[in-house]
């Protein structure tokens, strides 16, 4: 277990309760999405967490189904490698399962999960920078995942519509390239805001920085991403294809 994730699991469920109480109720504004996780969804999360704490494996599976895609998007945005991102999502849910007994049901589950994902992702990036992120077992694991079988998380056959596949792939690659120009801190904040819809307060708790830092990082990340993705942001390309 990484120390940062352990720290997350220790007592942050309680502190998240305050964050949840302060989940932004926007006073107007242009954004159509203040937060992607509605009150109804949070209520369902609480139910699922309570069931999972009593050992209900179906509830744990539903939590996975609700959040694994978004967790993957966050992890991928930070680590920029699909297999690494999948490993992080895997580790994050294992940690969730292991420590869910310590999680307070009144807290926001997704904030807790994202914090674990983010800590694992940032740890991964830092280790990679030091050039000691891969050990022998990791390499074996990756080799296994590249072949067919239950280790293949990313299918090699995508969609039946080749044009759609190509356009989506191009968009995804352009985004990853653009994200690559940002620092990991800036990547994290723009993904948590734009993809996950977290409020400034929630992001501040997930990333453990002041709200002012969140605002500053978000501003610079947006400006750089708008420049890097100018063809998509200013053009008429059909991103939904």
């Amino acid at each position, binding site marked *: *277990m990484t*120390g*940062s994730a*352990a*720290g997350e699991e*220790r007592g942050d469920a309680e502190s998240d309760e305050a964050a949840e109480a302060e989940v*932004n109720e*926007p*006073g*107007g*504004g*242009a*954004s*159509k999405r203040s937060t992607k996780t509605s009150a109804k969804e949070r209520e369902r999360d609480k139910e699922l967490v309570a069931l999972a704490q009593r050992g209900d494996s179906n509830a744990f*599976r539903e939590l*996975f189904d609700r959040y*694994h*895609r*978004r967790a*993957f*998007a966050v992890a*991928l*945005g930070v680590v920029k490698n*699909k297999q690494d991102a*999948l490993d992080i*999502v*895997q*580790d994050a849910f*294992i940690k969730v*399962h*292991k420590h869910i007994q310590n999680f307070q049901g009144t807290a926001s589950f997704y904030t807790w999960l994202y914090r674990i994902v983010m800590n694992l992702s940032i740890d991964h990036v830092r280790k990679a920078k030091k050039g000691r992120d891969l050990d022998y077992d990791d390499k074996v694991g990756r080799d296994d995942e590249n072949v067919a079988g*239950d*280790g*293949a*998380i*990313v*299918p090699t056959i*995508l969609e039946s519509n080749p044009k759609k596949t190509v356009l*989506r*792939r191009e*968009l*995804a690659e352009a*985004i*990853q390239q653009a994200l690559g120009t940002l620092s990991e801190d800036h990547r994290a904040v*723009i993904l948590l*805001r*734009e*993809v996950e819809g977290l*409020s*400034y307060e929630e992001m501040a708790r997930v990333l453990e920085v002041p709200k002012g830092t969140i605002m500053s990082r*978000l*501003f610079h990340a*947006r400006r750089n*991403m*708008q420049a890097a*993705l100018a063809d*998509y*942001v*200013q053009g008429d390309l059909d*991103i939904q294809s």
Partner: protein
Amino acid sequence: MSSETPIDDDKLQRFYDGELTEGEAIVVGRDVEASELEQARIAQMERLGEVLRAGAEAEADEIDPEALFLRIERGIEAQPSPRLQLIEGRKRKQRNTAVAAVAMAIAAAVAIAFLAQPSTAPETAESTHPDEGEEMVAEIDDPTQVLLDPPGGSSVELVEFGANTGTVFEVEGAQGQPLAVVWIAEE
């Protein structure tokens, strides 16, 4: 607000993100309505958000959730399941190998306090005081594993692992007696 005076970046961003107070949002909203420039700035932020979400969806579509969940289940099964308690220390700087392991093991042994309550001891307030009760001292053969045989009625009050993590297990000894095992994992 004059149309020549753009809304400052910070305020416009907070407006877009729904992070202004209701009163502020009304004022900024009016300014945005009155300015094509501000509307264009807002539209760019909206478009960027759409692009990023579309990209994230495209990436996530490639996940095989069943295979991923299977890996998670295997990972869960591979996890040790401590019977008593998991106590984690705060993350600090990683220290170097054996020296740290020995130091932490000694620290753990010293910090373990038993509230000794021998069954034969009179049940008075004074006799249950730790200073007057039976005190256990751990013998450390393996610096990463401290085996303790607590006397009947005693309990582990505190285990300090410092920068490391550790787990307290209860296991059955050779004579069927309960043993507390303190496992220290060097990080």
